[in-house]
């Protein structure tokens, strides 16, 4: 039973189609507490769609998804409450353009009654310190670089004190010199024991940080295992082809 308790996310046989395009086929996956799961695979393999299902931004056609013991596909489940505990970071940052950096971070905790304004602002300043942007609190989000925006977006997600963080290609829209700063913040977050599910093309980062790497291809999990198993002794033929392409690119 103590093993069971550690499951943070339980996914069983989810399917998703867009018209004739069957993007996810019978995917099952469990994510344990404190685990960092990195999902890799070619574009269009379904990994982002899968990630977006974990907080119901996408709805599966069939299957079971439990997060923190809540069946999120049950219409009776208050999805807004569940989402408060799942932070999400997007490829295109999606910072709120009508607010300052500080307001971006404090909006949700204050609006949703998690903290008073003063508490939220204090927390926001701490988080900005953590992501290395202590002096940006009162600037407009449009004045930030891509790397800075993504670090603010991470701080915004953390402000809700989530116990799971989802990252959807967080560095794909960044200039190469910005990537390092963002990955550094994510590494530090992983060290704190945060449960993380990450979709990325950064293989070096996956090797360093992941407890488990999952390879998606054609809407299926073709192989999963420790970074060593995946990167040094891949069994699946498609994984081998994929790795030979990305590692020598």
């Amino acid at each position, binding site marked *: 039973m103590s093993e069971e308790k550690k499951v943070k996310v339980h996914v069983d046989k989810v399917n998703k189609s867009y018209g004739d395009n069957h993007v996810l086929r019978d995917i099952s996956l469990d994510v344990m507490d404190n685990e960092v799961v990195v999902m890799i695979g070619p574009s269009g393999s379904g990994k982002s769609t899968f990630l977006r299902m974990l907080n119901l931004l996408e709805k599966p056609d069939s299957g079971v998804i439990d997060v923190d013991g809540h069946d999120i596909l049950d219409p009776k489940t208050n999805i*807004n409450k569940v989402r*408060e505990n799942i932070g999400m970071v997007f490829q295109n940052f999606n910072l709120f353009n009508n607010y300052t950096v500080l307001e971006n971070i404090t909006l949700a905790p204050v609006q949703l009654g998690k903290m008073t304004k003063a508490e939220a602002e204090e927390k926001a300043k701490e988080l900005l310190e953590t992501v290395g942007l202590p002096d940006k609190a009162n600037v407009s989000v449009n004045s930030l670089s891509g790397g800075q925006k993504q670090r603010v977006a991470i701080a915004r997600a953390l402000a809700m004190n989530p116990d799971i963080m989802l990252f959807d290609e967080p560095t794909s829209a960044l200039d190469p010199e910005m990537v390092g700063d963002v990955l550094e913040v994510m590494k530090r977050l992983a060290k704190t024991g945060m449960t993380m599910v990450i979709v990325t093309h950064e293989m070096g980062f996956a090797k360093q940080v992941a407890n488990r790497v999952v390879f998606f291809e054609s809407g299926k999990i073709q192989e999963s295992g420790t970074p060593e198993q995946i990167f040094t002794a891949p069994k699946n033929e498609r994984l081998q082809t994929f790795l030979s392409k990305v590692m020598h690119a």
Partner: protein
Amino acid sequence: MKKGLLTVLVALSALFAVFGLSKNTASASEPNYTITSDATYAPFDFQDKNNQYIGIDQDLLKAIAKAAGFTVTVKPMAFNAAMQSVASSQADGVIAGTTITNDRKAVYDFSDPYYKTGIAWATAKNSKIKSLSDLKGKTVALKTGTAGAEYAESIKNQYGFKITYFSDSDTVYRDVINGNSVATFADMPVLQYTIKNGTALKVQNPKDPFAAGDLGFAVKKGQNAELLADFNKGLAIIKKNGTYDKIINKYLDAKAETFTGSAKDNSTVWGILKTNRSAFWSGLKQTMYLTVVGIILASLWGLLLGVMGVSTHLWVRSLSTTVIYIFRGMPMLVLAFFLYIGIPALTGTKISAWSAGILTLVLNEGAYTGAFVRGGFESVDAGQMEAARSLGMSHSRAMRKVIIPQGLRLMVPSFINQFIITLKDTSLLSAIGILELTQTGTLIVTRNSQGFRVWAIVAMIYLVVITLLTWFSNWVEKRMNA
């Protein structure tokens, strides 16, 4: 952003206060009737140089009311609207140089005839057309709903001419003088008056009018019998005591200048502006009042439609789409007539021209506003909604806190554009008799026949106001983006 909106509202409500509504006062002892009348039908109904409504009809009505012991509130408007207002029970009676015809008797009850008239036809002064048979294949200009128009329709096929309609007399005359059409048919005294006043037309049958007939005061069939009886009683009194003859002679013998002001005042833009400044000013005030109230209410209505248009409920979205579809697809003039004349005829409840006008603006401009508001919300990047939802905010909270504020900012240029359109569209409301700037222009032109100069002045006033509105809007936009 909130401050910006507040500033706008404060400024608008200040404007509101400046252009307060004027109210009619009536004495309580004598019965008071609302009488509609033509606004542009000299010598029966027109405005003098002091912008008072005068004319044979107006003076007779006043004298008759006094003699018979009742009071009247006169509402001058376009002839057709004046007649329809009575048919739809918006007003009690109409005196508008109306010829008594069998067709009209089906809808109205007429008083004893108060004036004998007949139809004359006129061409441009130097026209080669001499007889009705010369009209073959040519176009004749007519004023909508008049006995002259009815007569022309009745001989149209016999003489083989085409017809074009206008809603006020001066435009009819201009059309003939400018050569777009070659002749017009109208009541003899009306044509004679305007020719005396300098309009370059020539009556072709001064000695023998067609379809000689009688003018009568009208009420809706089967209603206001008491008013009709009083009118007849008063008419008999003033005929007996000589007042009647005095009034007729005053208009048919006097020089036109008596009513229209000196030729000098009417022949320069400056003179016209000076002579009519109080008329222009009150017309402009009414236009501004309609515009400001229209903009505020249409914007609120449009915002509501726009928010409904991005609702998560299908039926709310459909409702918004349908309302926008209907009112964006309907010509504003049709909507104005429908609300003012159609609704009362259907439901029996009166609606003032002003209320009908504002309702028209709100429904029409609001539909356009609703469409671009919805578009504005939809053009906010979908990622903004996803980010808000992923933090645990509900759809409506995400709309309020993230999508709507960003959408509104995108919409500012569209709002400014719509404000300017609203200002211009108020001119259409002249058709239901609201005395705004355009209708003021029509009235002045009826009196002085100086169409070119008067319309140039009216156009300039609109341009000045639109420029001010644009500056104001740009200032607000800057404040919002600051």
